[in-house]
């Protein structure tokens, strides 16, 4: 788990990504279910865990995709059965995460979300997220 200090040093928050920017994350089929209390399908908390390689969690900035005239479906290519969930940058920052743009050759909108993610924070992300591309029924 990355500490706040490590994140500030290695993945500093970019205030240029405003709080309203939607940040998209692919959700695999093992990581969503129908929540009777919410009355809708939602991601599980396990969907918002940092990578095993020590890298912070990856997301994609929707405003970059839009500004390039792209479609959000481009980040779903090759991932049949996956869904796409969204939280905005302000929601991540509210839980003490940094938002660090990390453009890749294959995906310019790629961004890292760095910060401690105890289970309570992951559960909050899971319940607050909204679908951009919902799971197939």
């Amino acid at each position, binding site marked *: 788990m990355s500490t706040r200090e490590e994140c500030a040093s290695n993945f500093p928050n970019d205030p240029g990504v405003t709080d309203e920017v939607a940040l998209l994350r692919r959700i695999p089929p*093992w990581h969503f279910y129908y929540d009777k*209390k919410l009355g809708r399908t939602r991601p*599980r*908390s*396990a969907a918002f865990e940092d990578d*095993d*390689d020590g890298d912070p*969690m990856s997301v994609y900035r929707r405003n970059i995709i839009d500004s390039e005239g792209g479609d959000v479906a481009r980040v779903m290519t090759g991932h049949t059965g996956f869904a796409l969930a969204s939280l905005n940058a302000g929601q991540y920052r509210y839980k003490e995460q940094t938002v660090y743009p990390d453009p890749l050759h294959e995906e310019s909108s790629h961004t890292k979300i760095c910060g401690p993610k105890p289970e309570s924070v992951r559960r909050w992300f899971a319940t607050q997220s909204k679908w951009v591309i919902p799971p197939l029924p």
Partner: protein
Amino acid sequence: MPNTILGGNEYGLAEAAILSERWLSTTTLPDVLARPAVVTAAVEQSALLLRRVIIRKRGSELVVEVNAHRPLSTEFLKSIEAVVELLNLPPGWNSYSAKPIGPQIAVRAIRILAELMEPLTPLPAVVPRVQGGIQLEWHTDTLDIEVYIDTPDQVSFFAEHGESGQSVEASLAGQEQTLRAWVQRLSRK
């Protein structure tokens, strides 16, 4: 990759084919079974005691051998199948850098399920975790229970009753009875 659930007998396989520990001793088990001092009479009477859990690779099949002190319920067997299915996940199964699930984690999950599940306990969702762990979840109209198995020694849980607002979040070590009591509430519904 198909899975097979078996119980009881030895199959004469090479030791190298055994993916999990061959024998579990009380010194290697950080759970309720490993610390008789914290086991109450009630837990001892009702929990399913697994004498041995072995996961083997036999050709393309994963074989689980479970040796218990009484017959295994259908629900428990189904939950074992769900756990073993996760062993087939490749690296990067979440489309990012997720780690495959290791057999030691699977064995730990099976043992925790044995301690928690009663005949009327609903099937849990068995969920892979990005860093190679397993998450067990029960969700009803009023109860949410999640068990997080990060390593065989690092297990925690969260439970919440929606109507009363009562909740608990704790490491499993030393809190086995607390978790068991929450899961028993599922069975009473």
